């Protein structure tokens, strides 16, 4: 039955050999290769839960007195967007589960992409011939962050509105064109213009998901065409791939991962509260939340806005408002470096050969040091984005925190660069494995089939 079905598909797609190649495709084994899959499966959960949410959410900022399922808000003037988001949480069965799972999936989606990216940077997987896929991946990261921001901006709660007000200020801060750019995107002044809601909605539920799906398709096709990279090992060369075939081993494992990712996200969505918009209340431009954190992947931008000293320079008669530096210039440089990373590597290392075998991070100390130094440059403002929590937890005032982190923003990338360089060089030269807790004896197989202790002579 099944073999006849597969035969049938194979006969009709024969010239592409899709079925044969697909089933026999070899996946090299390494845990870090699953990070990208977690991102992929989070996206699947995002699409599934997101579709459910669209049936109940009303993207309109027109205001009505709230009369829905959540009694404490009765009589409060709220937008349709806010009211419907609250009602789908309280009135629609499984609505809150879907909403919270959707939110958690978004958080995991970006986190998985970033971990995947770190793996790519540290092992040199972006090198020729995979530069195009690196750029596609970086584009998905940028698009994913924008998509997440739009998603938590849609419900028109206080946190949403504050985020949009800041984003509007950042748009206004672009030199020369800013005071046109903001009203252009928002369809007028913000707050004030209600046009932004349906615009964000169509971008969030249609345009960016389609874009992401397209990028994912190209990304995976490129992976399959070039075949996976692999770490060096017995029998592994630039000319082959050794690992587990798609069917049955890898398909079972990967589908199992899909189910587990979905399951963990559902558990989080059901058991761990996230973004309780009924507690934040509807957006009011004169109200400010305190102790509420936006989604984690916005932290680096919030921190960058916080760390910028109070300068608004006037250059050639054009005054540059302060949010430009942290909100536009910093992410533009960060993504600029990320997008051009493979080419910067080529330029500096002058290595133009194709690579299918990965380096361990220690085997390329300069690359690892550069990657972690770059990461530090982004992580310091990310920590500044959590200053509220640091204040609550450690009782350190914000002025001291910001002052220290301004210094750290400049100093720490260099410190981490030099430290990583030293650690990698020493590990490489000595062959130590300090993170590996296994203290058993390594045995070698002899030609006659017996075993003997290996490495005893060292």
């Amino acid at each position: 039955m099944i073999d006849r079905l597969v035969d049938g598909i194979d006969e009709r797609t024969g010239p592409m050999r899709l079925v044969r190649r697909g089933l026999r495709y070899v996946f090299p084994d390494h845990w870090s290769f699953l990070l990208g899959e977690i991102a992929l499966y989070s996206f699947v959960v995002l699409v599934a839960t997101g579709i459910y949410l669209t049936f109940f959410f009303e993207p309109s900022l027109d205001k009505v007195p709230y009369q829905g399922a959540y009694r404490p808000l009765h009589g409060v003037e709220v937008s349709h967007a806010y009211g419907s988001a609250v009602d789908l949480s309280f009135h629609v069965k499984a609505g809150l589960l879907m909403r919270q799972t959707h939110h958690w999936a978004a958080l995991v989606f970006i986190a998985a992409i970033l971990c995947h990216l770190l793996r790519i940077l540290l092992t040199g997987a972006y090198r020729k011939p995979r530069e195009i896929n690196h750029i596609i991946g970086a584009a998905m990261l940028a698009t994913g962050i924008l998509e997440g921001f739009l998603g938590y901006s849609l419900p028109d709660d206080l946190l949403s509105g504050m985020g949009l007000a800041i984003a509007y200020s950042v748009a206004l801060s672009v030199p020369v064109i800013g005071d046109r750019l903001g009203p252009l995107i928002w369809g007028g002044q913000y707050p004030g213009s209600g046009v932004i809601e349906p615009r964000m909605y169509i971008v969030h539920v249609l345009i960016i998901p389609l874009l992401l799906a397209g990028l994912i398709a190209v990304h995976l096709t490129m992976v399959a065409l070039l075949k996976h990279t692999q770490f060096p090992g017995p029998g592994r060369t630039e000319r082959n791939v050794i690992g587990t075939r798609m069917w049955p081993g890898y398909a079972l494992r990967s589908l199992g991962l899909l189910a587990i990712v979905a399951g963990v996200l559902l558990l989080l969505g059901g058991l761990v509260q996230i973004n309780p918009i009924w507690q934040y209340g509807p957006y009011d431009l004169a109200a400010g939340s305190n102790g509420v954190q936006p989604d984690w992947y916005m932290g680096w931008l919030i921190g960058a806005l916080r760390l910028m000293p109070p300068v608004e320079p006037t250059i050639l008669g054009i005054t540059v408002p302060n949010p430009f530096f942290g909100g536009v210039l910093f992410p533009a440089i960060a993504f600029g470096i990320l997008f051009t990373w493979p080419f910067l590597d080529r330029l500096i290392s002058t290595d133009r050969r194709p690579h299918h075998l990965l380096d361990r991070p220690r085997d390329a100390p300069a690359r690892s040091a550069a990657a972690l130094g770059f990461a530090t440059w982004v992580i310091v403002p990310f920590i500044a984005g959590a200053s509220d929590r640091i204040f609550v937890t450690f009782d350190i005032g914000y002025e001291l925190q910001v002052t220290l982190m301004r210094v750290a923003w400049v100093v720490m990338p260099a410190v981490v660069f030099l430290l990583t360089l030293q650690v990698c060089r020493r590990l490489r030269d000595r062959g130590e494995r300090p993170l590996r807790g296994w203290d058993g004896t390594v045995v070698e197989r002899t030609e006659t089939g017996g075993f003997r202790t290996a490495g005893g002579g060292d």
Partner: protein
Amino acid sequence: MKRLARAVLALVTLRMLRRGGHKHAPPAEPPPEAEDPRAELTSDPARELAAAVLALGGAAGALAFVAAYLLSGDTQLLGLAAGAACVLLGVGMIVLSAGLAGQDRAVEERPLPQPEVPAAGELVTAPADAITRKKLLAGAAGIAGASIGAALIVPAASLGPAPALGRSPWADGRQLVDENGEPVMADAIETGSFLTAYPRGADRDILGSPVVVVRIDPAMLNPPPDRRDWSVQGILAFSKICTHAGCAVAMLRYPLYRPTEPGPALVCPCHYSTFDVTRAGEVLFGPAGRSLPQLPLRRRSDGGLEAAGPMSDAVGPAQGRVDW
């Protein structure tokens, strides 16, 4: 190096022996491409059984989800049931996969690209040599492309109106009311407290409307000479919209122990812009590049408060370039 490689291989072997419990040790070198798809795999019956049990556990979780949906609708129950169902099913699949021994040694050749003649670039450029007026055509195509691109972009201007500078609702004599529309009474404001006020009768949802009213010990005040009479009994009013990024300046820092603590200030919770309330809303700390606009106050005969003039400066972020 070879020794190290063999050691790693042996380690892998050892781990598989421990984990798998299968009888045959895998061959030391990866086998060549197998013709018979069955030859290289063995499956562990115990793990098959475990996978089946886990799958049935997943089914039970899914049925529990249906039951929870029909009978209760409780978010925690729904999440627990659905999550457990998926996790059990997933673990089952992975257990089954892990029970397949000898599967992780498959080899696939990676066809390396051979240099081909002609090169791809030549396939583009060589046939184009038939065209004689290349420069003319390239120029024409460039101009056409740029023009059409411009024509495609222009309609985007419809997305937003040209920015119109609104007018601040604050003017001499405009009374301050609280969020319920009740007049703000000077004597009701305690030292060290603050509240949000609006211009009577004006739209509250525009940036120029909300002001934060604070009362501090008059001895702390140190205003510039032209703002000496802008406060009433230590009561001052500032725009509530941060000049940095448009958030509500929602916190008043009022020192409880003057010798060691910094002076009274309004703090924006978004990016910690800190404005000196004792001195014209000047920036003390944080990223804001501009003082918080101040509203001059006057006491009315009925004890209420009113504006003694317009706001000192344009309200809101971006130098007040887009403003109400």
